[in-house]
């Protein structure tokens, strides 16, 4: 009988052997994530810090070119607050965000509930409803601009035929309606994304829970409020936060449709910051607005997520 002896093969020492044990092994994972961290610092952390820092310096084209940018403390913020357009843009931002978030969440949920049903041809409707979201935002905005045209726009034609208005109306040219006209486009564009998130969440709700609730006599609103919504609350919260952030940062819709006009009636903080930065080339003041916007976004998002967590804990 022959016995087979296992030969122990030792690997030839290599420079990478230093990561196999001891300090090298402890360092190894950090070295692996180091490139990702460096890239994140370069493309996320540095621009944010640089943007916030600029808010405290006099950064204009002249100072930028000369390299002599004096520290001005809170001066840029004072100048922003002294601008009457800032208060108007702040109020408009609140209206813009509230209308968008509430409408997109409401319509998104309604559409998700509608498309959750298994009926023949539902795939067609599910795909079709995503079209506004898939269309490039510039194309969508320019299409809506023509739809709102005060002379040949289809929106006016439809409303006249339906008897809602008597004459064509310059929706984007009227200071009373411009912001709301853009909001309609933004809601149309953003709702399918919310619907998609909520539809995915609805499909994960166990059927047994719905059946149990149904057997207990729950139906309609009670079913929605007490059974379905608690089941999808995490997805709902994510959709709310994302809609909030995307709406605040939705520059394309307002800029391409009205540029914040007429007479600043549709100005939001984002477009105001852009005007300071790239029309007046006052980058310090633009950074001041952007910093306030950033801080506001962080605070609002944190509060909302904390509330959701607290409810979760209950």
């Amino acid at each position: 009988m022959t016995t087979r002896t296992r030969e122990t093969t030792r690997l030839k020492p290599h420079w990478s052997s230093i990561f196999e044990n001891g300090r090298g092994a402890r360092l190894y994972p950090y070295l692996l994530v180091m490139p990702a961290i460096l890239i994140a610092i370069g493309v996320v952390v540095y621009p944010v810090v640089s943007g916030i820092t600029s808010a405290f310096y006099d950064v204009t084209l002249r100072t930028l070119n000369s390299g002599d940018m004096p520290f001005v403390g809170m001066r840029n913020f004072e100048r922003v607050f002294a601008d009457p357009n800032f208060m108007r843009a702040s109020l408009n931002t609140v209206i813009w965000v509230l209308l968008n978030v509430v409408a997109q969440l409401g319509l998104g949920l309604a559409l998700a509930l509608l498309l959750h049903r298994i009926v023949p041809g539902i795939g067609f409707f599910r795909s079709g409803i995503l079209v506004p979201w898939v269309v490039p935002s510039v194309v969508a905005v320019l299409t809506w601009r023509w739809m709102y045209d005060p002379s040949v726009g289809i929106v006016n034609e439809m409303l006249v035929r339906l008897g809602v208005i008597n004459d064509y109306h310059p929706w984007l040219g009227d200071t009373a309606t411009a912001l709301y006209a853009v909001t309609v486009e933004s809601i149309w564009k953003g709702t399918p994304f919310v619907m998609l998130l909520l539809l995915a969440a609805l499909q994960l709700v166990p059927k047994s829970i719905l059946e149990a609730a149904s057997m207990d006599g729950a139906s309609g609103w009670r079913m929605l409020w007490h059974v379905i919504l608690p089941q999808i609350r995490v997805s709902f919260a994510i959709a709310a936060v994302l809609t909030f952030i995307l709406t605040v940062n939705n520059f394309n819709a307002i800029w391409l449709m009205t540029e914040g006009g007429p007479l600043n009636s549709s100005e939001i903080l984002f477009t105001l910051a852009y005007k300071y930065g790239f029309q007046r080339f006052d980058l310090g003041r633009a950074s001041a607005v952007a910093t306030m916007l950033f801080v506001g976004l962080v605070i609002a998002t944190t509060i909302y997520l904390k509330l959701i967590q607290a409810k979760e804990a209950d």
Partner: protein
Amino acid sequence: MRNFLKNGTMAVAILTGLGTVPGWADNLVLWVNAPLASGPDAPLYAELKKFEAETGNKVEVQAVPHMEMERNLFVAMSGGAGPDVMALDIAWVAGLADAGLLMDITEQSAPLASKYQPGPFAGGRYEGKQYALPLYTNNAALIVNDKMLAQAGIDKAPTTWGELRAAAVAMTNAEKGTYGISFGSNRMGAFQLYPFIWQAGGEIIDDKGKSHVADPEAIGAVDFLAKLYTQDKAMPESVLTAGNWDEVHAPFIQERAGMVISGDWAIAAIKKNAPNLAFSIHPLPQGKKAATVIGGYNLAVRQGTAAPKAAFQLVEWLTGDRSIELMGKYQRLSATAAATTPEAIAKLPKEMQPFMAQASAGHPRPVVASWSEMHGVFGNMWDAVIRGRPAAEALAEANAEVENLLAR
């Protein structure tokens, strides 16, 4: 021996290569507004080939849309990058020069001054120094739908403010949905109304840097134009929203407006979208005097370019006498003095001739560093007036803003 031969061959090859180009060659990056480099067959490329053959320098063309050009130039050059030579709207020269981003070409351009039309040449000057030379010029004229004018019972295009109003009112028909004149909102409208301020004998900012925005002449001009919409209803509703030339031209192209104030860029748009529309172009109607607003593009050199000599050579090449033929291929007007001779005007396409004929009445917009912002102030003023605010009140507010900008 082999090394000696090898080195010798290389030296001969290098010297032969150098012998084909006069002096050391430079690589230049040129930014132009997109229509000038719309495709590989664009006339600019052929002209640049001649420049390259003559000077040995290489030119890389980068096309930038007009709407993005100003922002891109500021952003790129503030970061120390950007082109060596750039085409820029004449209204941006002061802002870029004030920021120290353009090369001072006063000395090199002084002997060339007489070759250019005075208005466009002045558009490249800021605080006594020359920073740019004019590539092409344009101005605003009155474009008239001949059929609508005849149907309104008028036999000639308006030449005075009174005739302009009469024609606009006559062409307006609420039932048919036709209007007298198409006008832009905000910045577009502001560009169209500047000539009327000068025609009224007014001024925007004088040579001493004083604002005249709220002077009676300016108020009269703005009031006259605004009433065409607020009282006579002779402008279509697009005056409230038209934020680009396409939207300003649209009512005219659709034959819903009988007149439009625009530049030579309107011709291609009208011919393309309404090939059967019979239209004619006329100098702007006069107030107390004739005046139009000068537009166009200049060529300038970036401060700090690695090849200042070659860059200026390129500017001189493209803006000099060759520009008559080159710009003619684009249906644009050369800004050289030679382009204004009767013979040169006669060679222009018929529809271009009225623009050149009124070139002598051209006013550049004020060459001040914050002009882009002031233009925005005028835009908001126009938006307010057409929504019913009294011209005197709106212009007083605009004047205060302009004075603030001048004092900054």
